[in-house]
């Protein structure tokens, strides 16, 4: 077996050498356009043609022509399949499918390496659990005995198991977990075939945004890291390290561009992927649900390890994977260096994507981000930022009186700091008029009990702010 693997490896290198002699090098990248948090490693590089900018053109690459191939997939598993078949060199996917990618390569007598994180959350935001809009369920504790669907062996499957464990439940007895792809689950939620659905980026936000589901659990509640990143065939990376670094520099450039103009690129992602710009901004924008973090924080390394362990528990993987060898940070470190960025500083930075803005109503610099709210007015290129939710709600009233329409109202969760879709959030209005936002009703109730104030839904909060004027 080992011998035949060696043979396969030799055959592979042989084909790669022939490619080099012909001076055409394939750069085949498998993307997941709808998984919008991978945009800086796929969709944006492709749409903005960033690869051309960074691919090496001197030294041993002097006379090389590049055969850049972009392939879009809907799951990490499908990308892995093509990588195993030798049709794709780079692939973007989450921790769970990424681990499978490593195992599958080893089984095939090859090796893949995880070269970067693209976007993630050390706490677990991005994954979430939703229920049909009309469901009375407000929190995960009410899901005992119910049917919950989840994309099998995805990063959200890991979250679901973790969340169930945190409730002290037995995943085999206390709930019925069925496997379901996101696109099917969207329909199943609308026809009430399932009681709840756990999913990854962007579906736990996209379904609520589309109006047929309500998020009742954010991944951060389970406090388990999740991320999407990029993998490459190890033999390819060894042969063409400069190309791997070039790809990562393109990703860094996409990241920088996004940071400069989040609204513009949220729209671009929407145009290409069909996932609404409002949802893209929710993830990628300042104070967003995830951080576009390209460093290998220990939490992300741990996420890779956890996914392997979880799958062993599910008896779906019999083989371990050496995380330290699977995760390789030398390429991303080199890309940071070439781009003049400080890898170590980024590695230590756990902040949300920063918001540097002035309050659209008062004109003052926003310094405290606990109660920030934002309004994206229709036909306006830029989002309006407000230091407080009540300030934003008041502004919303004025805007609407002027005949303007808000595309979306965002608020930040008072406790966890995650960005929320205002229309589905819960609010507590204190007696002094201060408004705080929460993902969960029970959270809002607790806050009101401890700090005083009244629990309101979005319309209630809007009416209350109007009434106080």
């Amino acid at each position: 077996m080992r011998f035949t693997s060696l043979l396969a490896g030799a055959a592979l290198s042989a084909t790669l050498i022939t490619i080099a002699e012909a001076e055409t090098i394939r750069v085949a990248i498998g993307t997941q356009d709808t998984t919008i948090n991978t945009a800086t490693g796929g969709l944006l590089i492709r749409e903005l043609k960033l690869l051309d900018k960074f691919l090496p053109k001197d030294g041993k690459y002097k006379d090389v022509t590049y055969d850049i191939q972009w392939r879009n997939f809907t799951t990490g598993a499908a990308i892995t399949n093509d990588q195993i078949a030798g049709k794709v060199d780079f692939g973007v996917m989450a921790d769970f499918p990424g681990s499978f990618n490593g195992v599958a390569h080893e089984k095939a007598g090859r090796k893949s390496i995880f070269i970067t994180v693209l976007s993630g959350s050390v706490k677990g935001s991005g994954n979430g659990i939703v229920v049909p809009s009309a469901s009375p369920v407000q929190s995960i504790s009410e899901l005992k005995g119910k049917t919950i669907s989840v994309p099998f062996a995805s990063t959200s499957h890991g979250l679901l198991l973790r969340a169930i464990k945190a409730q002290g439940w037995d995943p085999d007895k206390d709930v019925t977990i069925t496997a379901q792809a996101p696109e099917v689950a969207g329909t199943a939620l609308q026809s009430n075939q399932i009681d709840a659905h756990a999913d990854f980026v962007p579906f736990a936000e996209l379904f609520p945004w589309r109006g047929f589901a309500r998020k009742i659990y954010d991944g951060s509640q389970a406090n388990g890291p999740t991320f999407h990143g990029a993998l490459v065939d190890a033999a390819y990376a060894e042969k063409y390290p400069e190309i791997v670094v070039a790809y990562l520099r393109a990703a860094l450039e996409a990241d920088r561009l996004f940071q400069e103009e989040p609204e513009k690129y949220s729209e671009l992602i929407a145009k290409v992927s069909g996932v609404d710009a409002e949802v893209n901004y929710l993830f990628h924008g300042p104070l967003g649900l995830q951080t576009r973090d390209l460093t290998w924080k220990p939490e992300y390394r741990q996420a890779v390890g956890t996914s392997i362990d979880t799958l062993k528990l599910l008896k779906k993987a019999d083989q371990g994977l050496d995380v330290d060898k699977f995760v390789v940070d030398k390429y991303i470190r080199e890309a940071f260096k070439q781009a003049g960025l400080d890898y170590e500083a980024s590695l230590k930075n756990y902040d949300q994507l920063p918001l540097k803005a002035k309050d659209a109503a008062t004109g003052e610099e926003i310094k405290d981000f606990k109660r920030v709210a934002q309004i994206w007015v229709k036909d306006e290129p830029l989002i309006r930022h407000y230091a407080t939710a009540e300030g934003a709600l008041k502004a919303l009233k004025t805007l609407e009186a002027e005949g303007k329409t808000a595309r979306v109202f965002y608020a930040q969760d008072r406790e966890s700091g995650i960005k929320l879709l205002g229309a589905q959030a819960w609010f507590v209005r204190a007696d002094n008029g201060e408004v705080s936002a929460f993902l969960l009703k029970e959270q809002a109730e607790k806050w009101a009990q401890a700090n005083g104030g009244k629990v309101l839904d979005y319309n209630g909060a809007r009416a209350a702010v109007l009434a106080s004027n």
Partner: protein
Amino acid sequence: MQSNHDAGWRRWILRAVSIAVCLLAWQTASVHHLNLGFVSFVNVPPPTEVLEAAVDLAQSPKSLNHITSSLRRVAIGFTIAAVLGVLLGLAIGRSRRLGDILLPPLELLRPIPAVAWIPLAVLMFPSSEGSMIYITFIGALFPILLSTIHGVEHVDPRLIASAKSLGGTRFAILREVTLPGAAPAIFTGLAIGMGTSWFCLVTAEMISGQFGIGYHTWESYVIQRYPDIIVGMAVIGILGMGSSLLLRQLGRLLTPWHSEDTR
């Protein structure tokens, strides 16, 4: 009779040898990572690995659940398709007007692949079990329908004319002439429909899964367990072939007047 029996055995041996040769060729191609350029066995697991996976599955407590879930789905979907397909087929085959009314919409639905039905199947049925059964139903319906129509249309008109002249009522003619005349074609349709129903099983069980051999196959793809995928494919193949054979036998028993196919 004796020589006939021997010939039968010889044919079975030949069939078994044919399968063994296929397996051997597959094993050789996989183990030696055969690459013909346009088709490659480099990453195809050999039968020995598949056998290991099959043993694992057989020993898993879930395996019975996988198989019974799938059998139930196909059985229900197929039964509904059989009843509806035969009834519609008889009606369309017997009456030109009913044919004009019923056939056009059915012909429109016929080319739609099962996988395209998934979203609607999920929307239309209150349970995912219902959606899955619908997919196996839609897979089985059209071969049964078309074969029944074909069978009914090809009943010798002279037989019907004779029955009429002997004073047979419409119902009696249907029961005594048309149905027996069309029965061989109907059973062929049922056997094909059984096959196509299994054909659609993976599609059906992609909808939502916990148990089911199609689901097991799909799940194995998600986690790149290639030997398990082939086990799933093989189980579907065997169950599908088995149930089609059963139907053919049943057909032979029920249509003794139909000359035995001696091929």
